[in-house]
């Protein structure tokens, strides 16, 4: 087993063994968040293919693995992107890598945003912070098959203007017909002309027909809690609200036990859930 790329077939207990992938490009989005663009590795001898909302376990040599959502366009098969917030050991190691370095990838794992269910509806995307990363592949997919969906509304909250991810793209999207992008920051700066405050405030600037819309929400757990409340107040049925949850993950495939929330394994039953599947669990403290 000594070639550089090793087929990680599942026969011999190797779902825990990564495939190697070479970094093609690193882009710093903000001071502490960067996007790694890597050559898509083969998985079980097949080209890498994923659905929006899925994640990879990304391995930094000798340091460890982190669950990281795939943030690139699912239709682009040759490269995949991970947008990573530097918060600790693994993400710091990843932040120091250079073009040409190799990382390990296990995945794609987990459930996807319900694009089928969104057909014919207005799609309301509500995100905070790094939560926009797992939703970017969804946005690409919606835009690619534009006629199959109604309006696209993107509400996005960040700490400050300097913490906004994908700024250029946000601007491009906002100019497209029937796409609304509204951004709020917790703290503005002298150049900031947009909204200041929490992302839930932005609902007052949009019109939504709850019966003809679907919501996809990802961000810090408190932000999601308030967003869910706001959506329900605006008449959204539970079943039309979808969330992506974060938990500690060591395996990504339902074996290590770390990600459990009641009966759910967030890694394999989620991370994307229709709200009725998890709301009763999220209401409990420390579950």
């Amino acid at each position, binding site marked *: 087993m000594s070639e550089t790329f090793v087929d990680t077939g*599942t026969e011999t207990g190797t779902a825990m*063994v990564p495939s190697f992938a070479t970094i093609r490009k690193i882009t710093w989005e903000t001071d502490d968040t960067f996007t790694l663009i890597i050559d898509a590795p083969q998985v079980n001898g097949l080209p890498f293919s994923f659905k929006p909302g899925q994640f990879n376990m990304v391995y930094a040599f*000798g340091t460890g693995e982190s669950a990281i959502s795939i943030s690139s366009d699912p239709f682009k098969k040759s490269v995949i992107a991970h947008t990573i917030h530097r918060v*600790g050991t693994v993400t710091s190691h990843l932040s120091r890598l250079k073009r*040409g370095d190799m990382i390990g990838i296990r995945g794609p794992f987990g459930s996807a945003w319900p694009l089928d269910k969104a057909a014919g509806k207005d799609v309301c995307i509500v995100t905070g912070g790094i939560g926009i990363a797992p939703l970017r592949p969804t946005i690409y997919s919606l835009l690619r098959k534009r006629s199959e969906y109604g309006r696209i509304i993107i509400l996005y909250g960040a700490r400050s203007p300097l913490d906004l991810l994908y700024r250029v793209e946000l601007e491009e999207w906002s100019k497209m017909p029937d796409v609304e992008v509204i951004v709020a920051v917790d703290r503005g700066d002298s150049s900031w002309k947009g909204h200041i405050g929490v992302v839930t405030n932005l609902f007052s600037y949009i019109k939504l027909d709850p019966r003809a819309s679907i919501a996809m929400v990802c961000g810090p757990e408190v932000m999601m809690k308030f967003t869910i409340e706001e959506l329900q107040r605006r008449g959204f049925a539970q079943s039309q609200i979808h969330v992506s949850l974060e938990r500690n993950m060591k395996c990504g*495939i339902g074996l290590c036990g*770390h990600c*459990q929330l009641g009966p759910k394994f967030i890694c*394999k039953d989620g991370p994307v859930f229709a709200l009725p599947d998890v709301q009763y669990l999220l209401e409990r403290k*420390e579950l």
Partner: protein
Amino acid sequence: MVLQSGTKRILKLTPDGLEQILDVLHKIGFETIGPTLGNDAIVYETIGSIDDLPQGWTDKQEPAAYRIIKRNDQAYFGFNAAPQSWKRFLYPPDRTLFRIRRKGKGLEFMEQEENTAELALIGVRPCELEAITIQERVFTSSEQRDDSYLAVRKKLFIIAVNCTSSGGNCFCASMNTGPHAKENFDLALTEVVNANEHFFIVEIGSETGLSVIHDVESAEPTEDEVETAAGLVRQAESQIRKLDLDTTPKLLSANLEHPEWDEVSKRCLACGNCTMVCPTCFCSTVEDTTDLSGKLAERRRRWDSCFTLDFAKVAGGNFRTSPRSRYRQWLTHKLSSWVDQFGKSGCVGCGRCITWCPVGIDITAEVQKITGT
């Protein structure tokens, strides 16, 4: 002798016959592992002959108490659940997942020796047998699999031993996992020892079991002998501790805010002993290291416990800081959400968590308080 026909093939074996079985197993390449006497406890270790078994010993188990004492007979299997279950043979506490070497700018995997030993487990109790089946379910039910468990399981030869008396903390009868092993073994023994005789009634559970015992000296038991053995096993069914298998899962998930969670968490030290000794607990973590040169990296998987403080920690916070929430996670997972996840309870009633809890917390008593049963 010629084997009896019919669905259940039952034989009578002397201790010498058991020795012959070990010989056959050794000859066809099995490493035999069984109970031995070590460190003032029963320990599952490699055995060479029946002389290595803890003959004439028994254990006494109470909440937070375990000791071994002499029996007044020469039974080979006259004790109950050993401190450590068989879990470590199928799911090692520390396993290397892979080793990677730097090569120029790239990385490459290094060859890894896989443990290829074929194991014969001698003296697996019915509850432990069920625990092995439960873990097999856990490790094979994901779409993305880690087949290292199955690889060992597939090659196992299992000699189960039915319990003829139960330990102080056992509640297998109410969990429907014992004291009689019903399936998933190659051979199952019931030991009969009294003033006049010492023999085993053997049930054959598989073709491999049949072929192993084929050339071993055995006899056809009389109806009386079979009944004597069965009677002893029935006797082991009377146990003080109980759990209601039907109502517990629902009642626990309906009582997530019961005041008893606060009460029990005042006693629980969050030491995680219960999870380490439990034969079904499967949580693990991974550990990454490099050698001094930084050119060689290794990733290992180790047993973990939901009682550790950073088990549910993420960059933005920690989902379970209080001992209350961690005890609740353990108990509700084991007895309630396990059923949702894997179709069966995660507890087999072996009583280890009661014996090895340093403060003697009794899982059955806690369930009764929380579910009001």
